[in-house]
């Protein structure tokens, strides 16, 4: 399905289930189909809406790559197009920045935010940005397959890497190469190096916030995640044992249960 937002831009989206709306926010390496297998249980009692960011996947690719503000406006544009008043935002890695921005810019449209494997840090984002800069350099100088080889051991937990073995490394690479183009990833990673990085902003987020961290996330430690959650006025933290930077891939059921519990608690207190 496609929804028209500002400037004639159309966003590709999928909507499954009914109930409180959970809107997924892609990191720049993901497109909509990737959410299907990690939100299937969530969509039993919730409406899960996933979409491709402007300039990515099957959504419009304008001549000028969007800013963080454009992406935030698109979230609300999509909610308007789908006649959704408020939603929970489910973000991962760099899209946790987008969740923060939407919650700050449009507090009346956000019921809660989930930050899985946040790019946000309790003292800033410098470490994450250095990692993203290294990914960008690899992409620009060596291409997509080399980028995949670079980020695979940083993004996946050790348990998952051992379990999947070489067939997993090779098989998932096919998916990675098929889902994005070098241009889309280059644009996304360049944008990731920009924007507000101060942790002081987090104190202004009114929406209830859940930080989910794998205890094998090499980009943010569990204690760092707990410290991060404490920066939000209504923040909490859940640690997933053995999971990496994308904890919903290590344990999709466990992750969805955490999100459902968070949403249900916020709904109950509304």
């Amino acid at each position, binding site marked *: 399905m496609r929804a028209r937002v500002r400037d004639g831009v159309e966003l590709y989206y999928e909507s499954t289930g009914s109930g409180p709306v959970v809107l997924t926010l892609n990191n720049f390496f993901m497109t909509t189909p990737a959410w299907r297998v990690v939100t299937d249980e969530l969509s039993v009692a919730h409406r899960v809406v996933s979409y491709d960011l402007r300039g990515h996947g099957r959504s419009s690719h304008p001549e000028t790559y969007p800013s963080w503000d454009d992406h935030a406006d698109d979230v609300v544009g999509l909610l308007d197009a789908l006649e959704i008043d408020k939603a929970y935002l489910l973000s991962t890695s760099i899209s946790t920045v987008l969740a923060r921005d939407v919650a700050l810019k449009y507090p009346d449209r956000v019921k809660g935010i989930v930050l899985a494997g946040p790019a946000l840090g309790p003292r800033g984002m410098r470490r994450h940005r250095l990692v993203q800069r290294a990914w960008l350099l690899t992409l620009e100088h060596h291409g997509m397959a080399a980028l995949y080889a670079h980020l695979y051991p940083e993004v996946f937990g050790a348990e998952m890497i051992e379990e999947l073995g070489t*067939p997993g490394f090779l098989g998932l690479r096919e*998916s990675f*190469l098929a889902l994005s183009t070098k241009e889309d990833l280059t644009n996304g990673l360049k944008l990731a190096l920009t924007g507000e990085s101060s942790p002081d902003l987090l104190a202004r987020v009114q929406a209830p916030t859940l930080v989910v961290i794998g205890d094998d996330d090499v980009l943010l430690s569990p204690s760092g995640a707990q410290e991060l959650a404490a920066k939000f006025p209504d923040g909490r933290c859940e640690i997933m044992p053995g999971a990496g930077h994308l904890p919903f891939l290590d344990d999709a059921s466990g992750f969805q249960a955490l999100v459902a519990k968070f949403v249900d608690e916020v709904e109950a207190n509304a």
Partner: protein
Amino acid sequence: MPDQVTQTRQRIRELLVEMHGPDSFVRNVSDTVSLRQQGLSSAALVSLLVRMEDAFGFEWDDDIQPEVLRSISSLADHVVALRV
């Protein structure tokens, strides 16, 4: 060598049929077409690669280039090359 290639392609087809059934996309897929474009998911590709290790008695290497994994033909060529 041509026989080896043909036999290997056929065995890979059999592995795909074991995974997806005889009435799936496998029936009509050509040897050279991209398996991913035919709908083979990443999870299914991982499963195929594991099955190939068992069927042909080898282990995949992390340095394998993406082109090797594209089609039945490219997969079979890799297996045959390992045996030379």
